[in-house]
């Protein structure tokens, strides 16, 4: 049998990797379902408080007058768009390095939420631009990079679904997410350079004067509301993603289960 003299130092895929791969989904599900009620509670509370402060309690801006209220919806959405892509890239990187099944599902669940926030940031940005500059879309540096971020999200979602084998799609998309994350600073730098090159004189800087204290509270409240909303929806979608992978496994097993007796007889 294995003579001790040549005991090989073999690649030891020890129990920890095994534990990560199987027990992880059920353990993660228990963790997630514990967080979910808290996230929904915080989300609803901060949304109510945020809306109250944004619409009623805060004064109109001396320069932008009432349209500043759109900022309370636009700026948190832009923050969340960036935050979701960072979460997507982190989950994909950990999926690539430690081959976590769950990290793939967290990334796959984050992508549509991030895309929704980016779409929201673009729509409210253009709604804010119409009264301010008279046009729906302004090729401002920040709006353009949010638009490109939206295409990166689209690329991730499409690549995820482009393969018949779901795990193939997840692995390919996680590489794209990491490559995209590396490229974001370069894209940001080149869009700013491009903006200063073709700077039309009339555009007013988007962020305007320093934000007054009374405007900060609704902004922060809305930011917390958006983040807790993200965690709540993430909890729901991850649970659904784990279900789909279980369903697929059961269906495949049914195929093999019915296949084996056939040729054993």
């Amino acid at each position, binding site marked *: 049998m*294995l003579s001790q003299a*040549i005991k*090989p*130092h*073999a*690649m*030891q*895929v020890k129990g*920890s*990797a*095994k534990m990560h*791969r*199987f*027990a992880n*989904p*059920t353990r993660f599900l228990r963790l997630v379902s514990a967080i979910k009620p808290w996230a929904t509670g915080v989300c609803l509370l901060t949304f109510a408080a945020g809306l109250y402060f944004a619409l009623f309690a805060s004064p109109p801006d001396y320069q932008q007058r009432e349209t500043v209220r759109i900022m309370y919806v636009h700026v948190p959405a832009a923050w969340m768009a960036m935050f979701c892509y960072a979460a997507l890239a982190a989950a994909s990187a950990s999926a690539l*390095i*430690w081959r976590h*099944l769950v990290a793939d599902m967290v990334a796959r669940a984050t992508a549509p939420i991030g895309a929704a926030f980016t779409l929201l940031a673009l729509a409210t940005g253009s709604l804010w631009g119409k009264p301010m500059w008279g046009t729906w879309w302004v090729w401002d540096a920040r709006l353009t990079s949010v638009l490109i971020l939206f295409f990166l999200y689209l690329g991730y979602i499409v690549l995820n679904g482009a393969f018949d*084998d*779901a*795990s*193939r799609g997840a692995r390919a998309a996680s590489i794209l997410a990491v490559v995209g994350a590396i490229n974001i600073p370069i894209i940001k730098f080149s869009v700013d350079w491009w903006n200063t090159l073709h700077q039309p004189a009339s555009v007013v800087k988007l962020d305007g004067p320093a934000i007054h204290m009374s405007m900060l509270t609704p902004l922060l409240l809305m930011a917390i509301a958006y983040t807790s909303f993200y965690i709540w929806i993430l909890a729901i979608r991850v649970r659904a993603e*784990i279900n789909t*992978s*279980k369903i*697929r*496994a*059961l269906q*495949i*097993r049914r195929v*093999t*289960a019915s*296949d*084996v007796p056939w*040729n*054993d007889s």
Partner: protein
Amino acid sequence: MRSFLRWWEMNQINIKTKAPLYWPFFVFEKKFRKNVGISFNRTLIGCMNNIFGTRLQCIRSNRIVFEDLSFHIESGDVLHLTGPNGSGKSSLLRILAGFLRPSAGKLSWDGASEPIHEKIQYIGHQNAVKGALSVLENLSFWLQINGDRGDQKALACALQTFGLEKLANLPAQFLSAGQARRLTLARLLVVPAPLWILDEPATSLDTASEGALQSAINGHSEAGGMVVMATHTPVEADAKVLNMSTFGKTRATG
């Protein structure tokens, strides 16, 4: 952090054995390989004496293909994998070649945890044959891609053993399925490697070519090489056989 370091360390082995980490140094590759002592004796097939696999498990798209599979090959062995299709023969061969990582269990090629690519020849289901190139060009490409480890004399002799010497200058697109398969098998003789991994090598071969293949395998194992092959053809009683269906668990994963 520990598993990240292991992942980084595993990648280093993979790259270091082939070429220095950063590509500007590949110009000095010959000198690097000589002094690291990966000497390759052309007459002796190669220095690879055993491969261990203990309690291997393979999962593909959420299905456990096989579990708790252990095997042990010595130099000079010919291991036949038998079993119904879908029982994991190709998966095990791809794990042996290093394409696929086992999801559990230990695997060691001569003590190393990563396969050294110079020591492996892999024949898959498809024939890696380019239609636009001629038979000779196809074969000499595989000779050059494996560096200086094969030579022109082996090229002619390989074509000879598989009866392709008359078709040497014919573009490969005109070859029949059997001839294309023989061209792929000729690659085994062109580039000497201690471990042959063959995935149903005898598909679309006629009896004469099958005989040539069998004699090549016997010659290789006598010279101290190892062969792992998945076959459907009946295997002689005394051959080393690993029946895959005994390890096939059909339990789904979470």
